[in-house]
């Protein structure tokens, strides 16, 4: 079995537990992929002309999809490029990523969309650029959303910042509604959060660091929910981080408003007290909150208030992060640790069913982004993630595929990790 990138007309995955709750599949068996399409699922006789992947002890699931990553290209290639970001995605078990438009230039024209897609050709990862809501992400006028939609862009966001005004958000929701696109909101009210570097809390008071209060997120979500209800547009709240936000979204869903939400592995597992070391790898936007918030996020994930898990993978160069905390940029890596962290902290501890993990990391994000579902069934294009659920490993930031090393999970002992991905005829094996 070859490790690394490869391409083959015939691929056989042998003896793995194949798990796809969407089609009621859960058994140890073989999968045959011919010309990029699953041709049969069942015990196969040995074949010479195939790339054989021994999947003994492994889990094969529909390809994971991360609906929120930052690939930094164009403009900040010293942090990450589309290709290094894709390498991190493959290593983390993702076959698809949606990349946020806060690049330089931002993703507000067809040319940038095409450029990014071209960088990712020939890899078993599909890159879906998210378009800007406003031209240049400047928060003044709407971007040419229809023109971007022609390029296949299905989601729009000014991520890194909220859609600047209620008026613009109203227009964006109205405009996008026609094409069925979704507006992805980075919920933050700047007049409440400006200067804040961590969650406003007992901890920020103790550490003498300017606070970014929970209400700074919640007030923006409340605004957007009201606008989604008024316009009938589709709203998606990125990286929900507070208990109050979960309650707002739960209530909005109960009332039938078209709102969805995502949560990150770091908001589920880390809290603001970690800033006691002033280590900028813990500086993220929205900030790490309190354990009661993390608990509420998990509850929201379990009851469906929060639809998806997304990483908000945000690479930054070491010299930009290795500074005083107030000057360091926000953001942490996520692609390579997400699966391991969720498996270790929630699935292995029986707090999250494996079925819900698959739902939150592949089914829901694709649905929200308006992409066709990925299923493991004969006739479907191969789109698979291979997982070693019982492999123990230690996160080592020097061994990652990302160009940057700003992970807060460095040194964590995890159980379960991605072993590879297959997308059509292309595959990657760790």
């Amino acid at each position, binding site marked *: 079995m070859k490790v690394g990138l490869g391409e083959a007309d015939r691929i056989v995955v042998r003896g793995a537990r194949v798990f796809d709750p969407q089609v009621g599949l859960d058994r140890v068996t073989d999968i045959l992929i011919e010309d990029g399409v699953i041709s049969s699922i069942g015990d196969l006789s040995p074949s010479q002309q195939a790339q054989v992947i021994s999947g003994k002890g492994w889990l094969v699931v529909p390809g994971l999809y991360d609906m929120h990553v930052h690939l930094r290209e164009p403009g900040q290639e010293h942090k990450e490029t589309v290709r290094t970001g894709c390498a991190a995605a493959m290593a983390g078990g993702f076959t698809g990523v949606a990349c946020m438009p806060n690049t330089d230039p931002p993703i507000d024209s067809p040319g940038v969309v095409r450029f990014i897609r071209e960088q990712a050709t020939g890899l078993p990862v599909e890159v879906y650029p998210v378009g800007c809501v406003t031209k240049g992400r400047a928060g003044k006028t709407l971007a040419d959303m229809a023109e971007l939609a022609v390029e296949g862009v299905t989601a729009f966001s000014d991520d890194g910042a909220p859609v600047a005004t209620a008026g613009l958000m109203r227009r964006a929701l109205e405009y996008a509604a026609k094409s069925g696109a979704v507006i992805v909101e980075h919920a933050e009210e700047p007049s409440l959060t400006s200067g804040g570097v961590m969650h406003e809390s007992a901890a920020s008071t*103790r*550490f*003498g*660091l300017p606070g970014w209060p929970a209400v700074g997120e919640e007030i923006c979500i409340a605004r957007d929910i009201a606008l989604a209800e008024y316009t009938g547009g589709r709203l998606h709240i990125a990286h929900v981080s507070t208990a109050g936000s979960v309650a707002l979204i739960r209530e909005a869903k109960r009332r039938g408003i078209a709102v969805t939400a995502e949560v990150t592995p770091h908001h589920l597992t880390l809290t603001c007290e970690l800033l006691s070391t*002033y280590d900028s790898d813990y500086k993220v936007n929205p900030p790490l909150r309190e354990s009661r918030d993390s608990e509420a996020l998990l509850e929201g994930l379990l009851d469906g208030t929060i639809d998806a898990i997304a990483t908000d993978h945000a690479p930054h160069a070491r010299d930009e992060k*290795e500074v*005083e*905390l107030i*000057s*360091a940029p926000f953001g942490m890596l996520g692609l390579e640790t997400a699966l391991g962290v969720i498996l270790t902290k929630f699935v292995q501890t029986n707090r999250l069913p494996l079925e819900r993990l698959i739902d939150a990391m592949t089914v829901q994000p694709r649905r929200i982004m308006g992409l066709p579902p990925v299923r493991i069934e004969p006739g479907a294009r191969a789109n698979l993630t291979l997982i070693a659920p019982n492999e123990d490993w230690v996160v080592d930031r020097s061994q990652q595929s990302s160009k940057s090393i700003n992970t807060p999970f460095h040194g964590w002992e995890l159980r379960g990790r991605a072993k590879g991905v297959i997308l059509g005829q292309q595959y990657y094996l760790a």
Partner: protein
Amino acid sequence: MPDSAPRDSRELRHMLGLDGLAPAIMTEILDTAGTFLEVLDRPIPKVPSLRGVTVANLFFENSTRTRLSFELAEKRLSADTVSFSAAGSSVSKGETLLDTVRNIEAMKVDAVVIRHGASGVPHFLSQRIDAAVINAGDGTHEHPTQGLLDIFTLRKECGRIEGLKVLILGDIAHSRVARSNIFGLTALGAEVKVCGPATLIPRNVESLGVEVASDLDEGLKWCDAVNVLRLQLERMNQGLIPSLRDYQRQFGLTREHLERADREIVVLHPGPMNRGVEIDSDVADGPFSVILEQVTHGVAVRMAVLFMILGHEREEGRG
């Protein structure tokens, strides 16, 4: 609070803050400062305790007083010193800090006294260099030697810290002096209340073990000592207080306030003062003011901190 907080003064490698510092170590520092205070009264106020030790004073933010106080403390202990002031320079912050780390490593100094406008910079340095790091004020976080000298002064004036009632008055949210006082005083058994405009009282301040006094008169009736903080005039531009006049009326410490409280209240101020704003001149220069004593004590306390961190190591080295 550092995980590896020293329990014994021999484990004291840095002075990053008073948060989590063992009360026994604080008491030992105060006692040591007492003996150094006597040294300062000698005809030749100098001891050889840190001969051969090199201390770098790195001041990334203006503070003539603290810097002079540290430099004097180092000289009184016979240490070699170099000083660097980068305040006002326009170099990119990140570069400066990393360059600083590399330079300190290359110079092989024994200790770094650092003042920086960003919270946590001393912690950042202590994780990356071998030298001892002494926090001379970091952002809105801590100013541990100021806290210790305030506590030293209170102990000398009032004879005790345990059970003492201390009111901290002014901008609590942005004050490193307030934090170090709160951490140190509460750890040593004092009772602390804070008082100031609601916009300058940090949320969850009670989690630090203090109460909020609803107004100045109430606080003064309660306390044995009041520590008046300097008001940064920029807070007005940030919209945190409506006007200086408004602040002065509600929270400026005047003789009338002290008379109304009708008890002897020790008055501290870390300096420099905005006379007529947070404190009136007749209070600052009045009979209960210990503001100049604080300055003298500052040298002794800093000598004690330097000696306890750097002196032990040398003794072990010699042994």
